[in-house]
């Protein structure tokens, strides 16, 4: 096999048994790798009745098909679980860094971990040798310390590791898994699933190479994609400023959430924007494995109360979560909290939402000092936010209430205070139990549809149509050829968008085409190990370039339609998993507040989602995807994707 490593390792922590099996060619061809493999293996092993913290819950770790090669920005790996402690459904997340390729070089396409170790352990993988090792000496240690100590113990400072911090060990449902100190798999409490299995992490060292089937063809397409990215019209901005530049950009188009989505303008946003960040705090750019974009940063706070805070990252999501969304106007405490979350092993989006939602409850008098251990939860009070991050990671006091996520906190507080649950839950901006990342989309119907139909809950990384905010003013004037050239969108699809006029942000009709494209493309990208950033999302690698890279690497001919079909297959399979979890049409809606409360300020003042029109948009989406009006993939659709077993499960029960 070319491209794939060719092996799946299954590790049973209770029985301390390790089994290595060959990767099936059919699985490989149809699901590509990474997220595709994980979702398929989850479906095959699906037991919806298990508890998220039970030994039966299973972890899947998979690098992408292109991971380990020089194909640009393809070093990502996906961690999936059968049941997330945050959302109660399947979930996954991916990260860059250097762990994914190392796993591939060790010879594995997927690592499957189930059971529970009798004491805190870590897994060591050195090529063919897989060992379960004692980790009791690093119990309670931070991600950073654990990483250092594990490398020391393995005797290899360049070994790649994933670890959980104290938050994961304490089963915080917002905990993450981290590689290279700051590259984080976050989203739905993967860290807590590791913690529940007494699994502190995985260390890996691989010395095998990856060969490609068509060497010359690969070299050619590599050089083409590489120079395409480096000459892309947004390359300079994104490689210099990274995601923090979105603070300024989204603020201009009215897409910035402020104070838990109460407002969309923030006068101090300039001091949280990319240029301000880079000028005042950044030492150098940092890149993930095989990525020429290097959108991440190494930063240092040189003075003030947070002096000597040194770390990597501070993405837009973190900056908004602990900045405008919390009513905080200073960047330094955000960098400090970013470091805290990275070392404690906490997801910044989810943790930020738990705290900002609490501040919103506080503002409206739903909670007071009696609930919060005496903490004053006023907007922008960062000392309190820092205190809460600590409390959440340790499951202490009010932190214990927040540790299971904002939605669960609403339920707990309502029960304690004897007030109706809905009264508090209404404030929580979430879909399927996962709180939302930093986009204000009451004026962006495509974004609304995407967030609501994202298969792991309210998430931008599932296929957010990033062109929508700028479509009307910019892309629309330039025509389909421009979309094709700059964003890699196949001409056939781009033309269809123009025919159906789907680029109008406020229109509901035809939006499903836009959303389906991005969702399928990103499902494929996550299966290839490719960062969403370099896809049609921003830097323009579309399915055509993906197909050429995959064909050269594997020696199997893929067309761009095949790549999109692989994405559709993964997405539809995930929908089937959700339906087997009992989630129905009602779970595919944006938060109630966006239907009731118009945006009060800024460029999108007055914008609000319309329920009737949304229902029709959802109908159209299901129809285009080949699902019933309840959002169940039809028998014909499943069979057309080769998912015959799934069709049997869903339709012949």
């Amino acid at each position, binding site marked *: 096999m070319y491209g794939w490593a060719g092996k799946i390792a299954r590790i049973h922590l209770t029985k301390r048994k390790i089994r290595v099996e060959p990767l099936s060619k059919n699985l490989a061809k149809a699901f590509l790798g990474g997220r595709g493999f994980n979702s398929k293996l989850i479906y095959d092993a699906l037991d919806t009745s298990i508890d998220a913290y039970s030994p039966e819950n299973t972890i899947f770790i998979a690098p992408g098909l292109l991971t380990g090669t*020089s194909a640009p920005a393809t070093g990502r790996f996906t961690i999936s679980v059968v049941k997330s402690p945050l959302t109660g459904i399947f979930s996954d997340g991916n990260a860059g860094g250097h762990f994914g390729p190392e796993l591939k*070089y060790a010879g594995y396409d997927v690592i499957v971990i189930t059971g529970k170790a009798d004491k805190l352990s870590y897994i060591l993988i050195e090529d063919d040798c897989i060992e379960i090792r004692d980790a009791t000496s690093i119990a309670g240690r931070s991600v950073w310390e654990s990483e250092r100590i594990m490398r020391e113990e393995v005797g290899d400072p360049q070994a790649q590791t994933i670890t959980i911090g104290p938050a994961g060990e304490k089963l915080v449902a917002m905990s993450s898994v981290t590689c290279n100190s700051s590259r984080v798999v976050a989203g739905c409490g993967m860290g807590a699933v590791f913690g529940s299995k007494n699994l502190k992490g995985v260390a890996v060292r691989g010395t095998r190479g990856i060969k490609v089937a068509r060497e010359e063809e690969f070299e050619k397409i590599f050089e083409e994609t590489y120079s395409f990215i480096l000459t892309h019209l947004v390359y300079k901005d994104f490689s210099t400023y990274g995601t923090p530049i979105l603070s300024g950009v989204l603020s201009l188009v009215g897409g910035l959430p402020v104070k838990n989505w109460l407002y969309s303008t923030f006068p101090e946003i300039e001091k949280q924007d990319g240029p301000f960040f880079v000028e005042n705090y950044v030492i150098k750019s940092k890149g993930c494995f*095989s*990525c020429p974009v290097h959108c991440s940063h190494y930063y240092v706070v040189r003075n003030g109360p947070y002096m000597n805070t040194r770390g990597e990252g501070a993405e837009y999501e973190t900056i908004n979560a602990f900045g405008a969304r919390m009513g905080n106007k200073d960047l330094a405490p955000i960098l400090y909290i970013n470091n805290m979350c990275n070392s404690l092993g906490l997801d910044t989006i989810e943790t930020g939402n738990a705290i900002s939602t609490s501040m919103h409850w506080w503002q409206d008098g739903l909670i007071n000092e009696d609930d919060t251990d005496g903490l004053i939860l006023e907007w922008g009070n960062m000392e309190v936010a820092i205190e809460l991050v600590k409390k959440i990671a340790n499951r202490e006091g009010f932190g214990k209430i927040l540790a299971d996520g904002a939605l669960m906190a609403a339920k707990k507080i309502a029960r304690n205070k004897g007030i109706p649950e809905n009264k508090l839950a209404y404030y929580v901006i979430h879909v399927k139990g996962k709180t939302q990342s930093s986009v204000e989309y009451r004026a962006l119907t495509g974004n609304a549809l995407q967030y609501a139909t994202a298969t792991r809950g309210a998430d931008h990384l599932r296929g957010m149509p990033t062109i929508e905010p700028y479509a009307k003013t910019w892309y629309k004037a330039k025509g389909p050829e421009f979309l094709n050239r700059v964003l890699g969108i196949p001409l056939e699809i781009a033309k269809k968008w123009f025919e159906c006029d789907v680029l109008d942000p406020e229109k509901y009709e035809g939006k499903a085409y836009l959303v389906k494209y991005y969702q399928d493309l990103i499902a494929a990208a996550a299966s290839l190990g490719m960062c969403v950033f370099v896809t049609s999302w921003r830097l323009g690698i579309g399915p055509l370039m993906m197909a050429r890279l995959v064909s050269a690497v594997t020696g199997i001919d893929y067309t761009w339609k095949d790549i999109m079909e692989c994405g559709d297959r993964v997405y539809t399979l995930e929908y089937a998993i959700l339906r087997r979890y009992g989630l129905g049409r009602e779970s595919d809606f944006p938060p109630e507040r966006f239907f009731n409360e118009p945006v009060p300020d800024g460029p999108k003042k007055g914008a609000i989602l319309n329920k009737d029109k949304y229902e029709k948009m959802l109908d159209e989406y299901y129809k285009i995807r080949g699902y019933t009006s309840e959002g169940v993939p039809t028998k014909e659709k499943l069979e057309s994707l080769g998912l015959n077993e799934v069709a049997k499960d869903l339709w012949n029960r």
Partner: protein
Amino acid sequence: MEVSTIRLPEKILVINVEECTGCRICELICSFYREREFNPTKSRIHIVQWEREGVDVPSVCLHCEMPACETVCPTDAIYKDAKSGAVLIHDELCIGCKACLLACPFGGISIDLEKRKIIKCDLCGYDPRCVKFCPTGAIQFLKVNKAVLMRQRRAAEKMAELFKIVTTQ
């Protein structure tokens, strides 16, 4: 050793540590160009990383004028090519003693774990592939005088920065 044989080459490899983002594209390009596979252990260049300090250091043969590896080689397998200035290995003379690995102060010598032989940068026939695909210019192949001027300028820029801070306070 006859000092008269030492002659500065026209171009040299220049490492700009502050520009390295740690993406390791150079390792991938090197191993693919030389071994037709993607395998950092077979690369002639390696990025050593300290994540918490934010430091990434490209480690590669600097093609010394008086190579320690050449000096310690018991079979004269290592030699400095007079024309290109590259430090190269006669594979057929190499006995695999690894003395060069121990002698090199820059970690510029590696071992191919599969073929069990010493490998090192040979400047890809005076056109280093890693340089071509380094997205930030952290590794460059420059004419000697340009290289010297560039490093001088970079050092001077830091002094200028310092001067600005001192004079504005």
